């Protein structure tokens, strides 16, 4: 059902946890699949200095959460903004069709965390606009 990459991220998820005093928090959920993701980020010098997730959810939900943290760790906010759910799925060598629209919400959580950061820091909606 799941690709090897999905199973790898599911069994050895990267960056699990919650950052204390995060720069931004993103939280999304989908009751149909029973997935809830919480991402916390630490922003330093317009970069994602740290990112951690906690996820309640199926294999796809946990793997996409893990993957998104790996994808943006150390990246610029601009680069982070460009991450989509689709990109996360591709980085995992794909997801079963039924999971694509359901448990693949990690990028949404990331965008939520970024927005939270911009709001808190009064930095405007987009990194480039500050």
């Amino acid at each position: 059902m799941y690709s090897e990459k999905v199973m790898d991220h599911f069994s050895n998820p990267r960056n699990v946890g919650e950052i204390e005093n995060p720069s931004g928090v993103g939280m999304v959920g989908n009751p149909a699949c029973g997935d809830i993701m919480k991402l916390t980020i630490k922003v330093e010098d317009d970069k994602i200095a740290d990112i951690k997730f906690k996820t309640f959810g199926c294999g796809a939900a946990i793997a996409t959460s893990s993957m998104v943290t790996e994808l943006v760790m150390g990246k610029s906010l601009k680069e982070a903004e460009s991450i989509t759910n689709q990109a996360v799925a591709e980085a995992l060598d794909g997801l079963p069709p039924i999971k694509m629209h359901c448990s693949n919400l990690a990028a949404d959580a990331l965008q939520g965390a970024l927005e939270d950061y911009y709001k808190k820091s009064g930095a405007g909606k987009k990194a480039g606009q500050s």
Partner: protein
Amino acid sequence: MKKVYLDHNATTPVHPEVVDVMIPYLKEEWGNPSSIHWAGRGPRKAVEEGREKVADLLNCDVSEVIFTSSGSEGDNLAIKGVLEANRGKGNHIITTKVEHPAVYGTCKALEKIGYKVTFLDVDGDGMIDLDQLRSAITSETVLISVMYANNETGVIFPIKEIAGIAREHKVTFHTDAVQGIGKVPIDVKDLNVDILTLSGHKFYAPKGVGAVYLKRGVRIQPLIQGGHHERNRRAGTENVAGIVGLGKACEIARRDMERENEHLTRLRGKLEKGVQERIPFVRIHGQNAKRIPNTSNIGFNFVEGESILLNLDMKGIAASSGSACTSGTLEPSHVLVAMGIPLEELHGSVRFSLGRDNVDDDIDLVLNELPPLVERLRSMSPLYSAATGKGVDINFDTVCKH
């Protein structure tokens, strides 16, 4: 790696004795039972012997057994067959909110084309209220369909009482006994049901064969029309090898049921006690109801079922979440929803369904592997940290906007 199969409600291994009796009907006796020449004779006899064995298990007459290809076909035959045969007499069906999709989905589809369906509620233990059933019956009611035992929780329904109520009101009564047959003694005469569905692969027969008990005199319209097979009640060349296997499985069930029951009851007790001792925040669904002896549905709060299953699978342990038959949907189990289980717990439910080959070692393995695995998943869960005071207070309602 040691493999432990705890998903017998999804399907069972084919019993070696069953495989053995089937193979000659693939290799040598492959004739068509309807043929009058030499090639038809052995297969015809085999089909009738299979029918006798099914009838023996159910305590009915051979003429009351109709072979089908699956439990789903049987349920569809029973429900649509009764409705078609009662065209003009009424268009109301009564069933429950916890039926298998083969009944539940069929009734939902019938609703769309104009039938009226009452889906009876269940309480927190998964049990229906017979008074609600009684008051749901109208002059339009032509069919009551209530399962013998629930596939997700194992909860057994009071079929004899329901059959009595149906009879009182002259309504045809069908029971989907797919999860009961082979596991507990079921005597259709004693229960006094009109129609009963069973499926071979749930009790050590192969996939692709099942049967329907149809009480003499109860009228149904065939679902599959055509040739004169099965006394005009189900057309199509008979699955001879499958029928032979089903017959053998029925024979084995009669022979071994009592012993298996004791065995399964003990192992399930060990599993449930062990889990409750070792893992906090768990609940056994339907625990207060009468249940078939092999099934245990356990809710692990704060974690999601599939992620438990994947982890178990990595340890060689096969279990399931809800009904394996309904994977392909992502809806939470309609059975647990109907029982009023809160979302957090319902998404974290796992069904362990035991079978004849399970031994103490299997349960020990689960009891060793499950606690750390649940703990690890909980440590990743934002719900757990919230609930245990180590995080913000979140739940489904505050997060989900979809």
